[in-house]
């Protein structure tokens, strides 16, 4: 009977390690975090005081939080423009036959390459590129006589956020192009040929076949992009750590600084909970879309 007992529970044995790790290191911490957000505590003071929603009140009254949230929204909007809309158009052109297959492979690899770089490398590299006067951008501006456009890109409140966001676009647009290319290539050729027989030009083909054909993947990729925009942390932390003067603060850096620099853990947990609720809403939509497939 021992053997049959084993075989009865074997299926669960295969799942057990994964579920255990997920519960202990993903789900439980996420829930704990919500509990933490109701307490006032820090790592130096061992005692924890229940404060109800005080941390959230403090949060909503804090202009830095709102600044961060607006920056995340800006991040999402610009990311959608580049990583979804521009990427889709570029992918359609690459697949569309204007460009030969060998050049296409070359372009694809070139566009994809930035996405494999570690974020630290990207951040540090672009810090140097953005250096005033001596950085690559200013050198280009000076040598083309456009020095009037020069800025202290990462040092001015007006330019810092957009400068960081554009680095993300540089890194990830090519990646999304590749995903869109695969999705477009899955559209049957004869759909295009049927429309061509009716005299449609490339732009009409794009709107009548390509766009509806990749509708579902576009939706999912758009959601992944928004998701990424609201949990962004690393590139901002490397390049500006949220500065200057909180001008490039996002929710992730605001949370991290509160937890590990300012040592207001309860407040940090409240920020994390807000991130959690935002991504939960996005994730619910994503799972629904993926299950429809």
């Amino acid at each position, binding site marked *: 009977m021992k053997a049959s007992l084993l075989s009865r529970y*074997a*299926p*669960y044995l*295969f*799942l057990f*390690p*994964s579920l255990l*790790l*997920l519960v202990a*290191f*993903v*789900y*439980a*911490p*996420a829930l704990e*975090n919500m509990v*933490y957000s109701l307490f006032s505590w820090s790592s130096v003071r061992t005692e924890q005081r229940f404060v109800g929603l005080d941390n959230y009140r403090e949060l909503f009254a804090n202009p830095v939080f709102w600044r961060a949230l607006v920056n995340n929204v800006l991040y999402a909007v610009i990311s959608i423009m580049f990583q979804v809309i521009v990427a889709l158009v570029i992918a359609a*052109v690459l697949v*569309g*036959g*204007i*460009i*030969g297959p060998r*050049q296409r492979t070359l*372009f694809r690899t*070139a*566009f994809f*390459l*930035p996405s*494999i*770089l*570690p*974020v*630290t490398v990207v951040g*540090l*590299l672009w810090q*140097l590129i953005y*250096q005033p006067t001596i950085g*690559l951008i200013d*050198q280009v501006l000076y040598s083309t006589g456009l020095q009037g456009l020069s800025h202290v890109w990462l040092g001015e409140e007006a330019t810092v956020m957009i400068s960081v966001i554009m680095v993300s676009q540089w890194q990830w647009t090519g*990646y999304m192009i*590749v*995903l869109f290319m695969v999705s477009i290539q*899955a559209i049957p050729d004869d759909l295009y040929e049927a429309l061509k027989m009716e005299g449609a030009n490339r732009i009409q083909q794009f709107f009548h076949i390509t766009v509806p054909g990749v509708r579902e993947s576009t939706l*999912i990729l758009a959601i*992944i992009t928004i*998701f990424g925009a*609201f949990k962004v*942390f690393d590139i901002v932390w*490397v390049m500006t750590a949220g500065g200057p003067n909180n001008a490039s603060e996002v*929710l992730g850096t605001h949370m991290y600084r509160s937890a590990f620099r300012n040592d207001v853990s309860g407040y*940090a947990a409240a920020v*994390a909970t807000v991130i*959690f609720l935002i*991504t*939960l809403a996005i*994730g619910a939509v*994503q*799972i629904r879309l993926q299950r429809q*497939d």
Partner: protein
Amino acid sequence: MARRIGQTETGGERAVRMGTVALFWVFVILSVYPMVWLVLSSFKTSSEMFGSAWALPKAWRWQNYGAAWDYGVSQYLISSVIVTVVSTALIVVLAAAAAYALVALKLRGKTLLYLAILGGSILPPEVALLPLFRTVSALGIYNTYWALIIPYVAFGLPFTTFLIRAYMVKIPLELAEAAKMDGAGPFWTFWNVYLPLSRPILASAALISAMRVWNEFIFALTFVESESVKTVTIGMMSFANALRGDWAVLMAGLVISVLPILAVFLVLQRQFIGGLTQGAVK
């Protein structure tokens, strides 16, 4: 819709094509030149690097690389390799086992269990960071490789299970049934049928997991502090702080830290992109 052979091209079409190709070369330069600049600069002196951005180095300063290596990059690389190899192996084995059970075995509440695993993919690491920091400290693994490996595995499982499951679903269930008729237990079938037949996706999954672990940032920033345990991503931050001013050596260090993944990517590009697209676009 590839261009049909023998289709002739009008003058207008030709202009459109040339224009498009030219535009794409501009995109390529935008995409690639920062990396080229990185590599070129890593061979220059710091003053040369900022003085003439577009020029080749006057003399190729290999000593920048020696300096960067001696400055600690080698230690970061060792840590990254250890953490990446162990995490990737665990992620792939555990995800494959879970995917197999979800696909080929009789389970109660299969959909629920699958969602329990998949649900992990919507939780950003930031949300669990503070409690995880305490858990890691409580377990006594703070500032060790395990402080990175265990969270990496936990957070890597949902996507990898999703990826492998999508592949295993296409293996005919009759193979598992035939094995059952032949007296095979679930472990035999997993090891002798499902794993060998899933080899292509296991390769892709391993590649993607390795890339993610190698590049991971926030856990590596939070759960370790000694230079001897830091992975490359975080190590390069300390490295940059220590080197403020000696830009060219920093650039050399950055190049070194990229070389392993770049090499892996260039060799296994097909599997990598194949795996990514199977996961994201379906």
